[in-house]
């Protein structure tokens, strides 16, 4: 992911987290985003992170962190514990994103999900015309070393959200660090969504 896109995504998330919100950042990395949310929005935040080096950095930022694999589930968080659960550039690397996203609606009221858009024209060009697995500034990995396990597009996500019964409260798209307004599925390198649940999910009373 380009640095400029990363910055844009971070700003978008911070803008969409309410003041003093309780936040869970799934795959929080070194805690840079959480730290900003705590400082700038007065959020009460906690994170889950799998890499020890990142966990250590996050703790040294004064954050509360769980060192572990998010895929083990969120059952150690009480129902409705959070106002917002963040999955920033995480879901494409998860084994079972559907299961975890559903569970996120048990512990949180709203979700912020961001992901690299596989429908971007460069990816389409490389796969569709050149016949090569895409390697773009947004998806910069070779096929044999990519951490990405799922390739999704803006259209895929919106269909998925609708099928899951989630309402899109707001969305944003970015390319080269600048907002994308038209034809996002073709032009956006990454997408950002704020969602809430329309009806309680089947695992609500988990």
């Amino acid at each position, binding site marked *: 992911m380009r640095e400029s896109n990363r910055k844009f995504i971070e700003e978008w998330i911070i803008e969409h987290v309410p003041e003093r919100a309780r936040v869970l950042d799934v795959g929080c990395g070194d805690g840079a985003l959480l730290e900003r949310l705590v400082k700038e929005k007065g959020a009460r935040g906690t994170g889950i992170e799998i890499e*020890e080096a990142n966990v250590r950095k996050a*703790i040294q930022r004064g954050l509360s962190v769980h*060192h572990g694999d998010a895929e083990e589930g969120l059952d*150690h968080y*009480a129902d409705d514990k959070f106002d917002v659960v963040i999955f920033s550039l995480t879901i494409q690397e998860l084994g079972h994103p559907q299961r975890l996203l559903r569970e996120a609606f048990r512990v949180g009221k709203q979700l912020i999900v961001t992901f690299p858009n596989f429908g971007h024209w460069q990816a389409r060009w490389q796969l569709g015309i050149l016949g090569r697995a895409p390697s773009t500034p947004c998806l910069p990995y070779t096929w044999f070393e990519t951490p990405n396990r799922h390739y999704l597009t803006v259209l895929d996500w919106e269909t998925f959200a609708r099928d899951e019964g989630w309402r899109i409260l707001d969305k944003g798209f970015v390319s080269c660090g600048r907002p994308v307004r038209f034809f996002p599925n073709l032009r956006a390198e990454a997408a950002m969504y704020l969602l809430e649940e329309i009806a309680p999910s089947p695992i609500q009373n988990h």
Partner: protein
Amino acid sequence: MTEVSHERGELTARGKSGLGLVETHYVELFQEGLELESGVRFGPITVAYETYGELSPRRDNVILVCHALSGGAHAAGWLPGQKKPGWWDIMIGPGKAFDTNKYFVICSNVLGSCYGTTGPSSLDPKTGKPYGLTFPVVTIRDMVNVQARLLDYLGIARVLCVTGGSMGGMQALQWAVAYPERVRSVVAIATTWRHSAQQIAFNEVARQAIMADPAWNRGDYYGTEGPRMGLAVARMIGHITYLSDVSMERKFGRRLRNRERYGFDFTSIDFEVESYLRYQGQSFVERFDANSLLYLTKALDYFDVTQGTGALTDAFAGSKSLFLFITFSSDWLYPPQQLKEVAQAVRRAGGDATYCEINSDYGHDAFLLEHAAQAPLIASFLQRASEHQFEGDSGEGI
């Protein structure tokens, strides 16, 4: 990397501790007796303790350090005439993780031990002789109750942090559930919420080694040499569980001791690892009481922070403390999973828990060796705990 002497748990720090000379204090508590978990009333109890740093005017900078099985009140600094500093000197002192420029650190010897606090080797005032097996069986809960009374005596209503590794970590967990209103934060390292069958099994072998030694004499050996062989073997067993396969392989491998070929006998020492274990066993005999080892291992085995219910989440339901849990990947005595469960239970109970598993080859000993990895985590966590607003912060303590 810290240099570790042959003696377990005592680090040879480079350079002298910033704390300089320290002093062990003694106080007699529970004149009326303490009601133990077993139902027995026992007292009076002498408590040995040390303090480092200065108590703030608001009395809100207290850190209670709880020691492990063979530790004592002397956690940091130097006692006159001793060649080594306290057992956690590397972590406690000016500018260290438990920064004595900011915090007032207290460490006391646990009930049942042999380093100044009343234990089986202490004199029974009724008979004028050592208690031996007439000393009541004590538990982690009893140890914590004694510490709580020590804090009362020192005029401390609430501590900023209770911390410890191994058996010390159990005390820290017990503090959090028994005195939630007195504990602002907990740092529990390389420990568990209750012993598993394997952990009990190792302790039972250690106890049997002592009790099988004829010199143990049903605990009545004071004034004699005592069960030297039994205690040494008990320590050897313990020591194996403190290391890891990788660390032993690296440290000893199959290297032979002062010889090129096997001795083809049983009286001499073949392998380096044998020499090491014998040294560990022998030096422990010089510094620890066999009965204390029986009592303390029993306390470890009886410990269950849920009081037998197994309902870990319920145990932490009343806690408002912030928690930091640290484990080590190669610790097979207290595997990371056990403390991870506690972290998850605290969260399930609505609490705030941070959990970090440090990658280390040192096994359980990593708790005392991996200070460079732990210190920044603990320092940052304590800073957060200091700044955290707790319920009832406006009114002062209890």
